[in-house]
């Protein structure tokens, strides 16, 4: 079981805003055409993390994830150390925070929290915001990759016969029915989000939704989607619920079908 829940409230972060070991990461969209985002206003002390630039690099055939050491260097430059308590937020409890959450767990980071309801909840609560860029003292961050947080197509093929393994496709039902990894069940990642509050649904509802598709805590669950971000959100939700064995197949359908030519059903 987790030593602490992943999701924290606005009130929790307000109480811990000035804790010496807390580092806040703003994972929201950064697009000059939208009058929102880190450059306009953010939670005091937060540093930005833009998936487009900080996680991916362009390569022939589409964006590729940077190496763990390259990402570690970015985290260190933003004042994040291996023993920091990292608190993430995006617009709501959405897939951008989910993707950074998974990334940090993959890099072996012990203590990662996510603000439930994100920026929406923060501003609804009239919690403090600022345009000020925090003064950063660079830290040393060392990637300690934890392959137990990750799956590859080879790992799925080697383990596909196990009765305690469940493949969970987190795309929309229409994408699922167009073709999914053999044996996978479907629950779209956004079924976990309450659209009005932009926070996660309550624990009882979430557990019932997962159990309805056979995703129970006694199983090892591999989540995937098109390219590993929506599934990272489900990874975050399952870890928050205390599921002990969850892996995100970051390559997902693009890796399975397009790169390896493996069959879909």
């Amino acid at each position, binding site marked *: 079981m987790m030593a602490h829940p992943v999701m924290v409230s606005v009130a929790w972060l307000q109480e811990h805003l000035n804790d010496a070991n807390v580092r806040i990461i703003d994972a929201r*969209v950064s*697009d000059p*055409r*939208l*009058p*929102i985002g880190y450059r306009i206003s953010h939670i005091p002390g937060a540093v930005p993390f833009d*998936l*487009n630039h900080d996680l991916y690099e362009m390569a022939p055939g*589409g*964006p590729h994830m940077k190496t763990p050491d390259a990402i570690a260097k970015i985290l260190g430059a933003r004042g994040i150390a291996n023993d920091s308590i990292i608190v993430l937020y995006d*617009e709501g409890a*959405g*897939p*951008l925070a989910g*993707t950074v959450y998974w990334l940090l767990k993959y890099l072996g980071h012990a203590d990662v929290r996510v603000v439930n309801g994100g920026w929406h909840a923060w501003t609804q609560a009239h919690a403090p915001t600022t345009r000020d860029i925090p003064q950063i003292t660079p830290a040393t961050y060392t990637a300690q990759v934890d392959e137990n947080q990750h799956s590859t197509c080879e790992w799925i093929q080697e383990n596909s016969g196990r009765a305690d393994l469940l493949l969970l496709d987190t*795309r*929309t039902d*229409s*994408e699922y029915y*167009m*073709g999914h990894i053999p044996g996978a069940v479907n629950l*779209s990642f*956004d079924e976990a989000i309450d*659209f009005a509050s932009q926070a996660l649904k309550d624990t009882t509802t979430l557990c019932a939704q997962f159990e309805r598709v056979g995703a129970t805590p006694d199983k090892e669950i591999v989540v995937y*989607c*098109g*390219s590993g*971000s*929506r599934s990272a959100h489900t990874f975050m939700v399952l870890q928050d619920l205390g599921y002990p064995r969850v892996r995100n197949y970051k390559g997902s*359908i*693009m890796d399975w*079908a*397009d790169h390896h030519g493996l069959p*879909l059903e």
Partner: protein
Amino acid sequence: MSRWNPLVIQAPTDVSADETFDLKGEICPYTFVKSKLMLEMMESGQVLQVIVDNDESATNVPKSLTNEGNTVLGCEKVNETDWMITVRKK
């Protein structure tokens, strides 16, 4: 061969867009997160046209926006790569 097969919806010819948002070059989940953020800045009943250049986004953006209560009026392939998604804000 594409693994996605977006549902083609012919947008009504008498609908004009209040905003157009070019999301070519953007990948999931940015395509639907940014579409949603743009809609949040528009008035109820206004029409947004989103342009994406991959089949995955042309499949999941309409579905995600529909799930949030908006009405997808069109999803049309406009050239070899690009799709135009037309949505009315709830």
